[in-house]
């Protein structure tokens, strides 16, 4: 990714340098050639429509090229590839908390394998933060109350800066950490090294039972709530006729504020979980719901066997 961004950057630097050079050169030439001298008066020129049109249209053309180029890169930056490894990020004043899907937790350090797509699903516990890794040319604000995502694909191993780029209070400049990019084998070793309390999806499943979600959201018979098997990533028809895609933000909202977007055919009877689950627990629940939509070959799929839904998002 850094390469594509840098290519546009270099293009713009060269464009700017040549534009500046041209303008400054012309001004300098005029300033010297037409400096005030005795016996020479200024020639009055009112303007030139052709020139005006030329120097209005020409920049517009150049700008159009930059716009398309920039938009193209932005599309790429905003569209995480399918099958990316996922990491949950919870930002708070003033630290980064990271959860791998396998259950490993880190603070202010993110270990990732080289040559893999890594997608961050991020939220904040308090104010707005911004996840910024200059080496990967990625930045995304992290908002309280919703998920935002970003992704990268590290091409070399090493340790890179992780900054908070949105001013967040006293220790904003202390909210820094690092992204450690490792060889896959080292990464596997690292994953296995620290003790975990089970994968996120497994934790989520436990909570799903403890919080009683399972009594209504059943996968065998029709419960009072929708069957969650296979719904993730699919469009959902709502009670009010709208359709939304069941993405991370929808699952999140449906847990915290269930009456906001009720699935068609169901009553808004689910209790509100706002304030009852922490951001980390919420991540586990979301991850569990996601796991219900993964094909049996999926790495974290635990309960998908019963679903019998059509396969989707096959991992490579």
């Amino acid at each position: 990714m850094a390469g594509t961004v840098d290519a546009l950057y270099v293009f713009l630097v060269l464009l700017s340098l040549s534009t500046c050079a041209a303008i400054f050169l012309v001004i300098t030439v005029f300033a010297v050639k037409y400096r005030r001298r005795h016996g020479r008066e200024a020639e009055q020129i009112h303007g030139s429509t052709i020139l005006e049109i030329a120097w209005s249209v020409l920049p517009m053309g150049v700008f159009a090229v930059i716009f398309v180029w920039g938009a193209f890169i932005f599309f790429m930056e905003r569209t995480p590839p399918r099958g990316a490894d996922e990491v949950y990020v919870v930002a708070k004043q003033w630290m980064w908390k990271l959860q791998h899907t396998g259950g490993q937790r880190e603070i202010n350090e993110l270990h990732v394998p080289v040559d893999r797509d890594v997608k961050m699903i991020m939220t904040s516990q308090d104010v707005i933060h911004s996840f910024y890794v200059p080496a990967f040319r990625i930045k995304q604000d992290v908002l309280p109350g919703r998920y935002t995502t970003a992704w990268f694909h590290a091409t070399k191993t090493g340790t890179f800066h992780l900054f908070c780029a949105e001013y967040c209070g006293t220790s904003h400049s202390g909210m820094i950490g690092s992204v450690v990019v490792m060889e896959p084998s080292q990464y596997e070793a690292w994953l296995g090294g620290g003790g975990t309390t089970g994968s996120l999806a497994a934790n989520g499943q436990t909570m799903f039972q403890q919080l009683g979600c399972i009594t209504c959201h059943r996968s065998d018979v029709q419960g009072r709530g929708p069957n969650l098997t296979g719904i993730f990533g699919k469009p959902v028809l709502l009670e009010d006729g709208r359709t939304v895609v069941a993405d991370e933000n929808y699952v999140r909202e449906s847990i915290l504020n269930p009456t906001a977007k009720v699935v068609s055919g169901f009553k808004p009877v689910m209790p509100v979980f706002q304030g009852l689950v922490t951001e980390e627990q919420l991540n586990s629940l979301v991850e569990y719901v996601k796991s219900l939509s993964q094909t049996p070959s999926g790495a974290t799929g635990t309960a998908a066997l019963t679903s019998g839904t059509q396969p989707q998002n096959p991992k490579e």
Partner: protein
Amino acid sequence: MATVAVSTERENYLNADYGVRSWLLTTDHKRIALLYLLSITVFFFVGGFFALLIRLELLTPAGDLVLADTYNKLFTMHGQIMVFFFLIPSIPATLGNFLVPMMIGAKDLAFPKINLLSWYLYILGGALMLHCVLTGGVDTGWTFYTPLSTAFSRTGVIEAGLAIFINGFSSILTGLNFVVTIHRMRAPGMTFSRLPLFIWSTYATSIIFLLGTPVIAITLLLVVFERLFHLGIFDPTRGGDPLLFQHLFWFYSHPAVYIMILPAMGVVSEIVPCFSRKRIFGYSAVAMASIGIAVIGFFVWAHHMFVAGISLYAALIFSLLSYLVAVPSAIKVFNWTATMYKGSISFSTPMLYAFGFIGLFTIGGLTGLFLAALGLDVHVTDTYFVIAHFHYIMVGGAVMGYLGGMHFWWPKISGRMYPESWGRLAALIVFIGFNLTFFPQFILGYMGMPRRYWQYPAEFQVLNVMSTAGSTILAVGYVLPMVYFLWSLRYGKIAGDNPWAASGLEWKTPSPPPTFNFDETPVVTWEAYDYENIPLPEEVSLER
């Protein structure tokens, strides 16, 4: 200012009356302009002092000069004071107030008492701001982003918000006065197509004052209410949306950048023809570019929010519109350059500032193209790249224009000439100091140094040291004009009515002008910038 000694025998606005009352209760737009000049200068040096402290802190990677909280307050108050209490009123409230009636041949602004009221509102807002500064300050960043400002900050957000709210009404009333004056008070023969370009740009600025400022006023009021009464409109834990705040904030605060730069463009459009002895190249293109910037400027606000969590399609539209707003700015630069072609160019101080403006504004504008490019903005937004970019526009552009204008019209304002060689020296120092301060920040930004950092990784130090060094030079460049302007009040050469042999009605009346500007209402029969009809006196022509 009340003790200015004016040796001309004629009665003018300065010696028409003496005493504090005659200044504090004046309705003369020229005296109000001087009141503004005095007060914004105070705020400029307060804000500048904070800037120096910021730069000193950043001399070393560790946070060692001030505490983190102090540093956060410093950059917050630097921004708030410089933006709301210096840059926004700078040219409109001083030069604009002084020149708008004179340039169109009016005796005063349409509503002189409202004009005085707007100064008092400014002072009231300013006093509240200073009180806030002295009693602990505020640490939210000048952008007041929620929920940090509404639910987390424990500093004087309410007071600072109210200060800016009150100050906003000062801007609104000034803008209203200008628009009405330009529409209704023009002298006979002064048609819209004969208006000086400074008037066109002031007009465009006033439109932004009128339509943008109320939005920031209500937004900050909602922030204040939210803190006072716990409303929850911007609080995500209670169903509010913090992005709504950002939209409302930038709806004003992006056009506010044009409030700062448009008047400076107007100043440059006056200076370049005068010191090239030529008509402006493409009068109507430059005039329409001002209006175009003001109008399109209202539809680009979300380009501050590309990584804030807005939708992909919103980002695309705002990126496209941002490129559109760059076109009229480019047109202006080309037209100023073309104006010099086959001119008779002299290098007096105002012209040096105009050169500086064009150069720095070009760099600032071109780096804006980087930021409007979506894919690249993701990397450089919220870093020092942005800091450098907007300082090139707001300091390199707006302040250069302001200083250029002050030098150009100082003889008219005071009736005295400033020392020319000191003027040129100061212009040079400002230019060098400015570039040394802010150019390294582009590189810092691309290397990834985020803005608003009290401490930073050591690899960024060299460039930060350069920047700090530059800021001290810049400070000297800013103090110098103040010193010699004051000096010139007593010792400066008597200026005469039209020392630059400039076009424009303001030069057809004595310096300093009489209280009602013109002894009799002028009748305009000529086009703007008719330099072919203005002979150059010998002493002006010899001066390079």
